[in-house]
């Protein structure tokens, strides 16, 4: 018989290792991580194949998009739209590079933010639903430590996933740009800005995962936390737009856009401005710093309340 009594609760290193394994163990998480490279590859292939500016249908669509873009740009104080014709705009080889390396990257990071929210909710809520949390808190009575370790691990895993995704995706997108367009004007500033977007995006993804985790730890139910998150994403934008329009750009969609927004080589805002909050953030020129501050306004109360409930209240 080799089972031996251990004198106390687990040391930090062992605890972190165990929690990391627990976090990565659920099938949806494992399958999601395994499927991610394939999804990114498919996106790159689709970007490569769908770039047909010489096809009539694509051209008509481009003209329509340009008209919308011009109308949108005319409402802004400083627009460079007069200098670009539709043909110049979409034929400019820099367009593809900008879109591939920036717009597509932003789309992927925005999608990852959503996935991170779900990951956070699952990592916080699943163990409540299955009552594994009772076993964990009995084994590690220092609940603040448990809360922090798990929260930091969720954040770190989501951030690392975003970084690895960007590292994997960018060469693919730049490859598309090289074969279908040009890397002209890609100077040091361009690469620096790209790196900054990746860094900001990774932090955003991590913080959103932390938000999801905290929400689940606060509500102690996966479905409730997911419901709240979904209701927020669907309804709050409209409510804020209706009653406090001044705050509309600080909705999560606006925050995501502002954090990932950067004008690189050309004005391409209209092509990626999706949703009222995002468009407002674009028009108002919300900076990434302001957006992160707005995110912390979302995050901190939820984290604090979740910590208080978990560390100070009964768990049974």
């Amino acid at each position, binding site marked *: *018989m*080799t089972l031996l*009594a251990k004198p*106390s609760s687990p040391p930090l290193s062992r605890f972190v290792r165990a929690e990391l*394994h627990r976090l990565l163990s659920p099938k949806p998480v494992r399958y999601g991580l395994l499927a991610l490279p394939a999804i990114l590859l498919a996106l790159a292939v689709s970007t490569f194949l769908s770039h047909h500016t010489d096809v009539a249908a694509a051209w008509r669509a481009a003209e329509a998009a340009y008209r919308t873009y011009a109308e949108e740009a005319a409402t802004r104080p400083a627009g460079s739209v007069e200098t670009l014709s539709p043909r110049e705009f979409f034929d400019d080889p820099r367009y593809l590079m900008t879109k591939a390396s920036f717009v597509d990257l932003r789309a992927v990071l925005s999608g990852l933010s959503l996935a991170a929210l779900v990951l956070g909710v699952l990592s916080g809520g699943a163990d409540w639903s299955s009552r594994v949390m*009772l*076993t964990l*808190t*009995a084994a590690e009575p220092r609940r603040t430590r448990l809360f922090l370790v798990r929260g930091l691990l969720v954040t770190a895993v989501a951030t690392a996933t975003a970084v690895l995704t960007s590292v994997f995706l960018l060469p693919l997108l730049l490859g598309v740009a090289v074969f279908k367009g040009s890397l002209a004007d890609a100077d040091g500033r361009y690469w620096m800005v790209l790196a900054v977007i990746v860094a900001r995006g990774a932090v955003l993804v991590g913080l959103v995962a932390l938000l999801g985790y905290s929400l689940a730890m606060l509500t102690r139910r996966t479905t409730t936390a997911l419901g709240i998150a979904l209701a927020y994403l669907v309804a709050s934008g409209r409510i804020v737009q209706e009653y406090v329009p001044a705050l509309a750009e600080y909705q999560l969609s606006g925050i995501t856009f502002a954090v990932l927004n950067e004008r690189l080589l050309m004005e391409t805002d209209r092509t990626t401005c999706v949703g009222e909050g995002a468009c407002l953030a674009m028009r108002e020129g919300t900076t990434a710093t302001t957006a992160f501050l707005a995110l912390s306004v979302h995050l901190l109360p939820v984290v604090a309340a979740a910590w208080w409930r978990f560390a100070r209240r009964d768990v*049974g």
Partner: protein
Amino acid sequence: MTQEPEHTGPSDALVRFDDVRKSFRTARGRRQQALDGFSMSIPRGSIVGLLGPNGSGKTTALKTLLGLVRPDSGSVHAFGHALPKDQRHVAGRMGALIEGPAFNASLTGEHNLRLIGELHGAGPTEVAEALELVGIAQAARRAYSGYSLGMKQRLGVAGALISGPELLVLDEPMNGLDPEAVRDMRELLKRLRDERGMTVVVSSHILAEVELVCDWVTIVRNGRVICDAGVSELISRGTEHLVVRVHDTVTEQAVAVLERHGHTLTRAAGPRGTDELRMPAPRPHPHAPEVLRLLTAQNVYPRELLVESVSLEDIYVAAVRAADAAAEDGPFDERR
């Protein structure tokens, strides 16, 4: 009459609850008293049965011991440490299955156990050993979601054992087990006590099992301990009965004979045209030969004569009824 709880316990108590109170707020905003002056001791190296009706406070008491629930007042000590202040010093020395088994449904039994074992520094050897101990090694690689209730229960016990605890806390461990598994569980608990000196606390509704496996029993009612004593002591304290089964044609004659000689009888209908005459039987000699002699002298020949021993169930029912009667008289009201 109020039956005072006998929570003096043994001198080498591993765990001690003293006047613990805990209330919860219900969904309707009312306060519900889960523990109301709960006091008990858990003797080292014994198997303790925690009995009581649903909602009596058993699980709350166990959760308090595990640090999941914090008492409003009173004190809990385990291994000489005050809880929940020193919970982290004793957490690794306790293993628990509380409110049924809790595992990730999509993982295998082995994977689930590995995750718990990792917290305690237990490797594959210990995981395999724990699975073997509870008898589900052959199902280790199957998904937990495909386990039967009994298998889940066994895995829960394996999870409690994986840390190699000195104190094992099992909340309803026999739930969902088939008779063979119940017997295995009983043997396992006894082995853990005898071979490793493990102290085991079992909360259960299956009184017969508790009687068979436990050394010590604590009966809880309305958040209070109403009885706390060794099982053999309790049973020896109880009154046995001598049961005389006679054909119903001679019942009146038998009653007359026995009452004439000072026996106090109760009558009940027995099976297949018989009546049962029940009378208290003092230990250690329940005067069966004398009763037989009296009856046969009057040509009354009993169909059966047996000594009905006291079961834990009798003691439990008597204790709960006494507590209920005492509560109706209102002796606890002053304390609320």
